[in-house]
């Protein structure tokens, strides 16, 4: 394989990592900071994508579509929090798992009911639809650069929100002892609704941004959900930095694994079995990565013991 292709693949790995971070960002917030296992995160991602597709179809504007994704997902998040999640904070994690699993069912089929069973059309805006030339002569889709930029901005913003602001402190205090922070005069319920809505909005934004280069269809949130969990667990729960690093690691492993493993096996096997073994191993690679990381660092790369 040529060096330039290898560089390009590394870039692709990093890029896909940032994309993963974008999808995981909202989950990190809700899961890492509020301590809530929200399986319905993927559904909020889907809600964002569908809202964007519907608005883009109606108005033709990509910006409006993104706004719609944010609003729809935030609203869905706030409603979920007020109606369901709010009653589950003092419960076992398992109750949250069951409730949010139920929400997946409701959201998926609800979306199918409203939008039908066929994938929707959502495409990148014309201005960003082509490739740009990077230094070194690498052609790179402009839209993907946008995704990288948005991902990095969100990472920085979340980091500042959690680590540097008083709201961040209060949220974390609430996770440690909800009753106590309330007894000190903080309206933790309202705060949690806001955080949940924010996490949902991030999921919705990711759904719209990523949906434009993938397929907008019912069930699109499920693989994302698992991947997002993998990412934040590798990074260490509650750590934004960890989520970013975890996402990049997963992106690189996934991309380079699928490219390099078949080549690696071909060096000592015949071509067709090398392709078979290599790609089989590549599909397992991120899970092997996760298990490996957790065996050496049982609380993830940046998690607190």
């Amino acid at each position, binding site marked *: 394989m*040529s060096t*330039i*292709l290898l560089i*390009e*693949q590394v870039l*692709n*790995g990093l*890029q*896909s990592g940032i*994309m993963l971070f974008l999808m995981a960002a909202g989950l990190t917030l809700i899961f890492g900071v509020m301590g809530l296992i929200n399986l319905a995160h993927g559904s909020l991602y889907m809600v964002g994508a569908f809202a964007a597709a519907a608005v883009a179809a109606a108005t033709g504007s990509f910006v409006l579509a993104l706004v719609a994704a944010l609003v729809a997902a935030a609203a869905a998040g706030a409603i979920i929090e007020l109606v369901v999640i709010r009653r589950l904070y003092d419960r076992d994690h398992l109750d949250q798992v069951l409730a949010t699993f139920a929400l997946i069912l409701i959201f*998926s*089929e609800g979306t*199918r009911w409203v939008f039908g*069973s*066929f*994938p*929707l*059309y959502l*495409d*990148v805006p014309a201005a960003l*639809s*082509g*490739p740009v030339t990077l230094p070194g002569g690498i*052609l790179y*889709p*402009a*839209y*993907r650069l946008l995704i990288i930029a948005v991902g990095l901005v969100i990472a920085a913003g979340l980091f500042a929100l959690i680590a540097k602001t008083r709201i961040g402190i209060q949220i974390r205090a609430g996770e440690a002892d909800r009753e106590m922070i309330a007894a000190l005069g903080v309206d933790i319920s309202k705060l949690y609704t806001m955080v949940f809505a924010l996490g949902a909005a991030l999921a919705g934004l990711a759904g719209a941004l990523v949906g*434009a*280069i*993938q*397929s*907008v*269809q*019912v*069930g*699109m949130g499920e*693989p994302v959900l698992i991947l997002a969990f993998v990412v934040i667990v590798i990074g260490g729960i509650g750590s934004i930095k960890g989520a970013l690093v975890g996402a990049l690691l997963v992106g690189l492993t996934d*991309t380079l694994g*699928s*490219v390099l493993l*078949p080549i690696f096996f071909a060096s000592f096997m015949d*071509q*067709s079995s090398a*392709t*078979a073994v290599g*790609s*089989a191993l*590549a*599909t397992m690679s991120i899970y092997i990565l996760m298990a490996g990381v957790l065996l050496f660092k049982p609380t993830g790369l940046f998690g607190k013991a």
Partner: protein
Amino acid sequence: DGHGGKVKVGMITTLSGGGAGLGLDVRDGFMLAVKGNEAIELVVEDDQRKPEIAVQLADKMIQSEKVDVLTGIIWSNLAMAVVPAATAQGKFYLSPNAGPSALAGKGCNPLYFNVSWQNDAFNEAAGAWSNENGIEKVFLMAPNYPAGQDMIAGFKRTYEGTVTEEVYTKLGQTDYAAEIAQIRASDADTVYFFLPGGMGISFMKQYAGSGVDKNVMGPAFSFDQGILGAIGDAALGVKNTSHWSKDLDVPGNAEFVEAFQAEYDRLPSLYAAQGYDTGLLLASAAAKADVKDADAFRAALAEADFQSVRGKFSFGANQHPVQDIYMREVVKEGDVVTNKSLGVAASDHTDVYGAECSM
């Protein structure tokens, strides 16, 4: 004629979750074909695309509903789960989609009729067409699972040019940046791929944004009507092989397209066409023989005495189709992105597994 026997049909298909669009089309096409037919009684159940549910539904239809004929399954892994069990219990099975090689060869069965295609068919046709249309070097890509491997093998069976790369992706993969980079770096002139459902949508959109401009070709599954709407202009110009196209000039096809649109308010897909043909086939057999007389009914089915919307249609010795496969191209008609037929890619095509079938 006039045996007066009714046929009870159990349809197990995917009506919820990710792949529901395909199941809906098959169901609607079938219902359109048997609409008003007194001899056919239909029960439909949703398999949720889970093999074990499909097996249990088959049991239910056989044991409780006492159906005579089963049909409806979309996915080859579900078919592999249901068909052997159903035929073992003496029920007919008509496949409106999916044709795993195992059921065409050693596993063929007198009670199993495939009304769609064998997995390799579209690919063999595409390979043959490529030989004649100056396609010299191809980049092959499919998900790493049996159907994907079958499709690639099918293409390679007939294709005589050079295969530059053969790439197997994760099943359900959504990001193809790495593969697109490989395609860009490859010296192939054509990309041939099989990526059903959302995978194909994602790939095509990303490919269009990448600036790579090699020819794109594949079996029809990634370019069918239900999906084209979601890919949009990115799919224009793509060549794909299919046994049916909306614009085929064969008796009954235009009427079918029109009736389907009138009934369901959407364009029919190839799945709808297969469902429709399956319905017609069944109706033709039901008119000739009583299903309780298995031998007679089987003979009636084997005659394939109906006007297929694909034109020529008959069964080979392994009861898999002998039919023409066409090359189609994705075009825009007004606002609608759809397929246009370019002509026959392989005529009277039949599968290679029939030789292994001892029936």
